[in-house]
């Protein structure tokens, strides 16, 4: 974990006091509702359908046990005993009262946390690979870079009133596990031919009503130049991005309308002026941040764990969990362990206070005090000894957290939808629950293999439905809920937007429609092929034909 220094703490404290003053000035009429709205949003406070919602930042998904326990306390004291982890790796509390929010922010500040810039037209929480610092395949730990960006973008005086929100993701692996090309800026840590570590930058990706793929804007940027280059990108966007239409205000529209070449030329021109005006960039701060991440003191362990093997042989449930929920660690004898927040029939991404405390205890005992939140709305214990997996599994099982479904069809990403969200056009959670129960059979899940379902309750696409293997978008159609299904989306290296299968369906017809789609795959797949691989080989046509039967039947 990055360790806050006194200055980091002071700025968070001052920000809490500033927000308290803003609330007071709203209540005494100094600030109009129109003026107050962006201020509360930039402090994570939304006005939802039934109540205020507070979105707390979890920078690049990293939590310590102490922080997670504090979230549990907040869930109990100010919410209804649970929190919701989001695709931005943040956590949302759905039932706080406005006058209690400064107190909650104070509790967060006590554990070096905040809700700064979790909403509003500013630079949002920077995300990364949920296995950062643990993954076998990373060039380096991407978290110091993400923290560097977090600090630079926090309370930035120039970029606080952008045309629209701005999201940055960082990754340090070949395999993209951070949806780099779905971000306003994607930062990939790479090595050049000379062996220097630097950054490859993508710009203009995004989902929402106009989904676009991020485009390569700089192939290699020396490390020291990152923040200067980001400043140039943000300045060009702030000045040139459209302000006349909220739906065309993201940087992706600017890049699309003027073209990548023109955009790049503007950024490079601005960047050369940034360089000329500023002292030569140095890496002192980056190095300080890197040193502030405590390096776990890994033991030298054998590759295999006899203990785990024996336990697996005796317990098929454990064996299944091991097969699904472990990820290869860079250190021999260790694994990164995913805790699925997708229990069968549960609300995806929700965790109770008790579950949070149990995970915090596990992290403290077994994972160097670290927990990660993944954009897939699960939790990760990043540094677990293979030997300890049986014991961890037993605790998780008792907490209802041992669902062995990582990356399977029931590992559904789902936004809050019409049950909470003021922007929603349809419910999403009940459909996720229905599908989860529909595909509950572990053997069936195993047979289907890796397949992502993502359900958004409106066109804003918080659940990333465009880039799901099977994406579901809830819309409102003549007073009822209607669900559009796309297939073939991919969030990773073969980034692709899904293709629409046909007209929207009522919720009741969705499970059968998905059965048909999966039927096409199971019939046509070749040895070892996943759903998305078969889809790429066959194209959308046979899936459309199968879908049409269902669509026609309900039409």
């Amino acid at each position, binding site marked *: 974990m990055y360790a806050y220094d006194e200055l980091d703490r002071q700025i968070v404290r001052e920000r809490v006091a500033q927000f308290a003053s803003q609330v007071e000035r709203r209540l005494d009429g100094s600030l109009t509702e129109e003026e107050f709205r962006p201020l509360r949003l930039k402090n994570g406070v939304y006005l939802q359908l039934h109540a205020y919602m507070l979105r707390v930042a979890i920078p690049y998904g990293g939590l310590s046990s102490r922080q997670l326990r504090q979230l549990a306390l907040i869930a109990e004291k100010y919410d209804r005993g649970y929190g919701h982890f989001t695709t931005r790796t943040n956590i949302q509390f759905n039932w706080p009262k406005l006058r209690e929010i400064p107190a909650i922010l104070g509790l967060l500040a006590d554990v070096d946390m905040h809700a700064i810039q979790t909403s509003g037209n500013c630079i949002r929480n920077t995300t990364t690979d949920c296995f950062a610092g643990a993954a076998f395949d990373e060039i380096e730990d991407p978290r110091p870079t993400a923290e560097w960006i977090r600090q630079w973008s926090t309370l930035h*005086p120039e970029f606080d009133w952008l045309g629209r929100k701005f999201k940055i993701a960082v990754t340090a692996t070949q395999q993209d596990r951070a949806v780099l090309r779905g971000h306003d800026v994607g930062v990939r840590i790479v090595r050049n031919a000379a062996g220097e570590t630097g950054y490859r930058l993508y710009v203009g990706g995004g989902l929402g009503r106009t989904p676009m793929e991020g485009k390569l804007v700089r192939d290699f940027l020396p490390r020291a130049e990152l923040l200067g280059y980001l400043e140039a990108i943000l300045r060009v966007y702030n000045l040139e991005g459209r302000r006349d239409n909220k739906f065309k205000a993201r940087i992706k529209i600017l890049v699309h309308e003027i073209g990548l070449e023109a955009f790049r030329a503007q950024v490079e021109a601005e960047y050369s002026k940034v360089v000329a005006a500023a002292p030569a960039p140095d890496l002192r701060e980056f190095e300080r941040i890197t040193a502030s991440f405590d390096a776990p003191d890994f033991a030298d362990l054998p590759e295999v764990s006899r203990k785990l093997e024996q336990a697996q042989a005796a317990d098929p449930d454990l064996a299944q969990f091991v097969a699904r929920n472990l990820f290869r660690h860079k250190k021999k004898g260790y694994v990164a362990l995913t805790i699925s927040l997708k229990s069968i029939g549960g609300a995806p991404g929700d965790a109770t206070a008790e579950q949070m405390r149990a995970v915090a205890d596990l992290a403290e005992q077994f994972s160097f005090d670290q927990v990660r939140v993944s954009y897939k709305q699960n939790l990760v214990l990043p540094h677990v000894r293979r030997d300890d997996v049986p014991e961890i599994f037993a605790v998780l099982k008792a907490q209802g957290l041992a669902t062995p479904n990582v990356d399977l069809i029931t590992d559904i990403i789902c936004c809050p939808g019409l049950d909470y969200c003021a922007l929603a056009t349809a419910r999403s959670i009940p459909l996720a629950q229905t599908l989860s129960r529909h595909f509950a059979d572990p053997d069936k899940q195993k047979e289907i293999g890796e397949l992502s379902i993502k359900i958004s309750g409106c066109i804003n696409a918080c659940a990333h439905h465009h880039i799901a293997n099977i994406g579901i978008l809830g819309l409102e159609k003549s007073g009822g809920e209607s669900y559009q299904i796309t297939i073939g989306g991919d969030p990773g290296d073969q980034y692709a937007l899904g293709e629409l299968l046909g007209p929207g369906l009522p919720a009741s017809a969705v499970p059968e429609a998905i059965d048909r789609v999966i039927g096409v795959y199971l019939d046509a797949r070749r040895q070892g092929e996943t759903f998305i691989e078969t889809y790429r080989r066959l194209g959308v046509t046979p899936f459309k034909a199968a879908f049409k039967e269902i669509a026609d039947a309900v039409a």
Partner: protein
Amino acid sequence: MLLLDRNGAKPDPFIAVETLDDAPGKNVIDAFASVDALLAAGPAQAAVLAPNDLDAEDFAPYLDRLALIAIRFPSATDGRGFSLARQLRRLGYKGVLRASGPLFPDQFPQALACGFDEVEIPDANAARQPVAQWLAALNRVTLSYQRDYARGATGPASILDRRARS
């Protein structure tokens, strides 16, 4: 209109004139679109009011002849003026930069950090948000993670500089 800088309210030394024939010897503010005529009219000091969607380069030929540039903020949430101010300072503009529009006090420190010296707000806003609130807003966040944004001695201290020194 309320005009204020980091020390509080101040009178506006610039006046708008009916016709530029009245300009000689006076401190005159006019639209940026008329800058050539304004300068030719021979005011004591010249100031312009500019929209926020101009290129900073458009100002370059005039920078050393303008005592003040006021950048219009059409709304509080349109942040283009912050970047434009930053670019004008980078171009070497030494005169007064004024942010003109319905900003609110929490944006005052941001405006100063980006290179503005003063803000001019509509009377209705000033009635809700008197000078004391504007000055109080300057002292709420005393640190910043950015390096060369704060101008002058009263801006937030750069965390980076503080760390570099320790």
